[in-house]
C-alpha cells in the first residue's frame, strides 16, 4: 500500500490535486518525491513534507493529515485514499470515482463538484460541504458524501445530484439545491433556502422559511426506495423515514419541486 507519512506541519497550504494512487503508480520514487504540491513561489514538493513509500497498489494512505492539505483526492477516479488525520478545503472536489476516507475533520467545500465515488469524513466538515465553490454552478454532482460528525452552514449548497448523509448540519442546509438528496440527524435554520428540486430528510430542524408549505404526513412508495438506499450507509438515517414523516414542499419562491421530510 503506498504510504505518505507527514514529517512536519506544512509551512504553506499544499495542493494535492496531482496526488492519487493511479498517478503515483506510474512514478518512480524520485519523481513522486519531486511532485510539486506547494502553492507559493517556494516550489514545495511532496518529499519536503512527506516520507514517500510506493508499491503501486490502488489504495493510498496519507498518515498524518493537516488542515493545510487542500484538494486531497480531487483527481481520484478509482481506488482509494485514506487520510489518517485532518484535511483542508475542497476535499475530493471534482472527483469522479473511488473511495476517499478522512479520519479527522475536513475544511470547507468538501466534495464540491464531485461526480462519482464515495467520500467519508469521520470527523466534522466545514461550511459548504457538498456545496458549490464561489462562481461555480453546482456543488456535489453525483458522488456520495458521508459526514459522521457535523457539517457547517450551507451544506449541499447548489448540489445537483448525489447523496449527503450527515449527523448534524448548520443553517441553510440544502440551500439552492438543484436536485439530489440530503439526510441529516438535525439541521439548523432555513433548510432548503431557494431549493428548486431535491430531497431533505431530517430528524429535527431550526426555523423554517414561510416559503415551505406542509403537505401532510404521507406514506409514499418513494420513501421505501430512499430508505433502502440509505440503509447501507446509515441505518439511523434510513429509520428517519419510518412511521409517517411530515412532508413540506418548497422552496415555493422558486419552482418549488423540492421537499423536506421531517421524521415523525
Amino acid at each position: 500500500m503506498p504510504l505518505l507519512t507527514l514529517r512536519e506541519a506544512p509551512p504553506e497550504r499544499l495542493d494535492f490535486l496531482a496526488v492519487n494512487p493511479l498517478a503515483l503508480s506510474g512514478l518512480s520514487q524520485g519523481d513522486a518525491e519531486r511532485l510539486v504540491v506547494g502553492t507559493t513561489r517556494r516550489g514545495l514538493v511532496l518529499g519536503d513534507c512527506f516520507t514517500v513509500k510506493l508499491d503501486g497498489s490502488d489504495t493510498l494512505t496519507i498518515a498524518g493529515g493537516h488542515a493545510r492539505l487542500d484538494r486531497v483526492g480531487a483527481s481520484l477516479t478509482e481506488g482509494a485514499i485514506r487520510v489518517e488525520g485532518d484535511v483542508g478545503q475542497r476535499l475530493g472536489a471534482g472527483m469522479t470515482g473511488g473511495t476517499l476516507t478522512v479520519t479527522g475533520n475536513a475544511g470547507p467545500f468538501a466534495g464540491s463538484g464531485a461526480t462519482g465515488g464515495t467520500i467519508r469524513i469521520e470527523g466534522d466538515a466545514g461550511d459548504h460541504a457538498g456545496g458549490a465553490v464561489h462562481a461555480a454552478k453546482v456543488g456535489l454532482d453525483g458522488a456520495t458524501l458521508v459526514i459522521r460528525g457535523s457539517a457547517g452552514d450551507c451544506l449541499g449548497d447548489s448540489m445537483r445530484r448525489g447523496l449527503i448523509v450527515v449527523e448534524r448540519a448548520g443553517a441553510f442546509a440544502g440551500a439552492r439545491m438543484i436536485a439530489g438528496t440530503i439526510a441529516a440527524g438535525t439541521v439548523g435554520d432555513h433548510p432548503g433556502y431557494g431549493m428548486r428540486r431535491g430531497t431533505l430528510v431530517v430528524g429535527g430542524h431550526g426555523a423554517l422559511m414561510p416559503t415551505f408549505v406542509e403537505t401532510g404526513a404521507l406514506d409514499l412508495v418513494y420513501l421505501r426506495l430512499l430508505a433502502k438506499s440509505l440503509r447501507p450507509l446509515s441505518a439511523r438515517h434510513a429509520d428517519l423515514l419510518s412511521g409517517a414523516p411530515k412532508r413540506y414542499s418548497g422552496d415555493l419562491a422558486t419552482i418549488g419541486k423540492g421537499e423536506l421530510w421531517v421524521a415523525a
Partner: protein
Amino acid sequence: MAEMTHLTLNGIPVEDTFAEAFDVAGTALIVTNDTARWAMIAATVMTGFATSVIGCGAEAGIDAELSPEETPDGRPGVRILLFGFEPNGLKDQLIKRVGQCILTCPGTAAYAGVDGPTKIKLGGAIRYFGDGFAVAKRLPDATGRTRRYWRIPVMDGEFLCEDFVRAVDGAVGGGNLLFLGRTHADTLKVAEIAVEAAAAVPGAILPFPGGIVRSGSKVGGRTKGMMASTNDAYCPTLKGRAGSKLPTECNVVLEIVIDALTSQGVSDSMRAALHAATEVGAAHGLVAVTAGNYGGNLGRHHYHLRDLIAKEA
C-alpha cells in the same frame, strides 16, 4: 392424422411434427402494490386484451407473483411479460397499458423487470401526465446500480415509475401444442393441466384466456382480405371433409400458445406442458397431441415434438 403418428408419450400418440414460432420483441415489468391482491388487479388489467399481437397490438401475461423480498420497493408484486412484433410497437403498447392500467390503479408502482440491449422509455414518457410537477430521482438499487425513477403526483399520492425498461434480444412468440380430445370437459381439463405446467416455467407466459385458445387459425382465408381464418383442418364439425386432420373419435381440439423471453423458455415450457398433458391424457380421453406450423417457412424457430418427448433437453 393416424397415418402421421409415429411417436407416443405416456401412451398418448404424439404427431411427429413441430411448432413454428417467431422472433418477437419482449420485455418484463414488475408492478407492486401495498397488497398482493391489488398488485394482481393491476397486472390482470394491464395484461387484458393482449392475446394476439395482430389484433391486440401486444401479447401479455403474468409470469410470476413476487414476494416483498423479490421486488424493488419491498411490497408484494407481480411480474408481467409483454411481447410485440418489434421494440417500437412494444413501446407504444407499454406506454398505453401502463398509462391506462398501472398509472390509474391505486397504490401501484412500476419497475423494469428484465435487463436487455434495447431501452424503452416508460416513466420518461408517462411523466408528462404530471404536467411539469413530476420529478425524477436517481437511487441505487440492491446491487448498487443507480436507477432513475419518475415521481408523478396523482390523487392518492405519487405514481412511482422507472424511467425506462429494456427489451431483450431473442424473445420468441408462438410456441404451441394442440390437444385432440373426445369431450369438451375432459379436453379442457387436460389443457388446463398443460397450461399450469407451461406457465410454471420462468420467463414464459400463455397469453390466451386461461392460457388456452379454441380458435386456432391458418394463414389467409377464402374471403378476400382475411389475414387469418379458422383452422378448418382441426374443426370437429368439418371432420370427414378433404383436408380434415381429425380422427373420427376426436370431437374437440384445444390449443395452448406460449411466448417467452428466450427460445429455451418456449422449449422448456412446451416440454413441461407435453409431459403434464400426456400424463393425465389417458384418464381424460386424450386422442393425440400435435402442434401448429405454417410449413416451416414463416417462423425461424421450430420446436419438434420428437425432441420434447425426452424429459431433459
